[in-house]
């Protein structure tokens, strides 16, 4: 009898052990409703009179150089300034179909080794030397693996590899090697409404990404809806955070995702301490009904911990798209597409 009892306990403990293996840290889905701190920020507009920007989408800096990427400029995608004064230097990255020209710039990354730019329509990432800012030189053009289908954002994984979001719906992101080939594929779209991953779902879940190799943190934020994902590429943990507007909403038409619901995030930056995001929250119904002149951009910067805890909600006095965070000086430089003086600086309050 005693031996039977010990065997039963043994089975119970073992079953609990099996269950605990299934409940590991890899898929923790949590909703957030509010932020610990809600602050209004008022920005200082920096003059950039020497160059007319049409649609400044991204802003990055490295040492004393800042680059603004203009998504719809008629001539050049990239515009260089001094940092932090934002005195205009030059424009480069000519729009066009010629070999060294750019069809569709998506994002840029700046390092000590120069600048990297993604061209989605040419399906390539170009590394440019910035030693002479007035004559940047294409050092290397990396043609991307066709199986990526379409690369709409990228981050630097290390000296030679990249992280690129998945477009097929079969995964969440890929690690790409220095030759542009897929080295590994990771994750799945964490949709609760749609179980089958396909291109349409991937289009709706199109995300902006950033990766910080210091803490191995990859953050993805959805352009539609309000979903933040955090992957730790060292210990393989995965956190999903869904905000009040929920996951991306769309209608399917001919295999294409037609956005409905809301415009969500438009930029993300992972620092050593936090994850900074730009959030819009405007419905497409509202966007469609908007009178001229139309306001475009997000009014909020949401700050999360590296574990996805919602910490700070900053409400801005401008509508912005891209951000560049400087935690050392506690400043965020942003770009406002609605203004002829698009660079707006905010002082962070923690």
């Amino acid at each position: 009898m005693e031996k039977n009892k010990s065997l039963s306990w043994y089975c119970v403990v073992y079953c609990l052990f099996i269950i605990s293996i299934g409940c590991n840290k890899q898929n923790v889905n949590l909703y957030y409703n509010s932020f610990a701190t809600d602050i209004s920020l008022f920005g200082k507009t920096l003059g950039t009179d020497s160059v007319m920007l049409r649609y400044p989408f991204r802003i990055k800096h490295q040492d004393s150089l800042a680059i603004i990427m203009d998504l719809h400029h008629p001539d050049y995608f990239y515009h260089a300034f001094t940092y932090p004064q934002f005195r205009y230097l030059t424009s480069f990255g000519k729009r066009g179909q010629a070999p060294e020209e750019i069809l569709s710039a998506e994002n840029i990354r700046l390092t000590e080794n120069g600048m990297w730019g993604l061209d989605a329509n040419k399906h390539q990432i170009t590394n440019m030397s910035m030693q002479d800012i007035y004559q940047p030189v294409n050092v290397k053009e990396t043609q991307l693996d066709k199986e990526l289908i379409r690369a709409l954002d990228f981050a630097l994984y290390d000296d030679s590899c990249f992280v690129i979001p998945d477009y097929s719906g079969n995964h969440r992101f890929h690690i790409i090697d220095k030759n542009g080939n897929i080295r590994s594929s990771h994750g799945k779209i964490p949709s609760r409404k749609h179980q089958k991953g396909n291109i349409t779902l991937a289009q709706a879940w199109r995300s902006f990404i950033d990766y910080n190799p210091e803490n191995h943190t990859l953050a993805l934020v959805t352009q539609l809806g309000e979903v933040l994902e955090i992957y730790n590429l060292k210990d393989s943990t995965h956190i999903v955070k869904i905000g009040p507007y929920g996951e991306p909403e769309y209608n399917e038409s001919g295999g294409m995702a037609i956005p409905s619901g809301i415009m969500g995030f438009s930029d993300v930056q992972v620092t050593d301490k936090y994850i900074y995001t730009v959030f819009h929250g405007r419905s497409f119904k509202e966007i469609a009904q908007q009178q001229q002149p139309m306001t475009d951009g997000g009014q909020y910067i949401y700050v999360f911990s590296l574990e996805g805890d919602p910490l700070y909600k900053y409400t801005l006095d401008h509508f912005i798209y891209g951000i560049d965070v400087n935690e050392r000086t506690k400043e965020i430089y942003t770009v406002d597409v609605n203004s002829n003086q698009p660079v707006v600086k905010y002082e962070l309050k923690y």
Partner: protein
Amino acid sequence: MNAMNKKKIIVTGLMTMVLLFFVWLKKQNNMVENDLVLLNIEALALNENGEYVTCLGIGTLDCPSLHSKVYYIRTFNGKK
């Protein structure tokens, strides 16, 4: 070896097999590599429902048919 010990060994062996099975399941990678999938994807980009997909303005939405960045995307029935 008495019957109870034999029973323990059998149960332990079965549970070990179950554990190994769960570990194997977790390591499975379902990546699909198939050129045919890519061909189907290109076909799906064309609207098969008789609907027009219209991409309007300039913005940041990736227009699935034009591959340019637009402000708004909508569909309408061609019969309207």
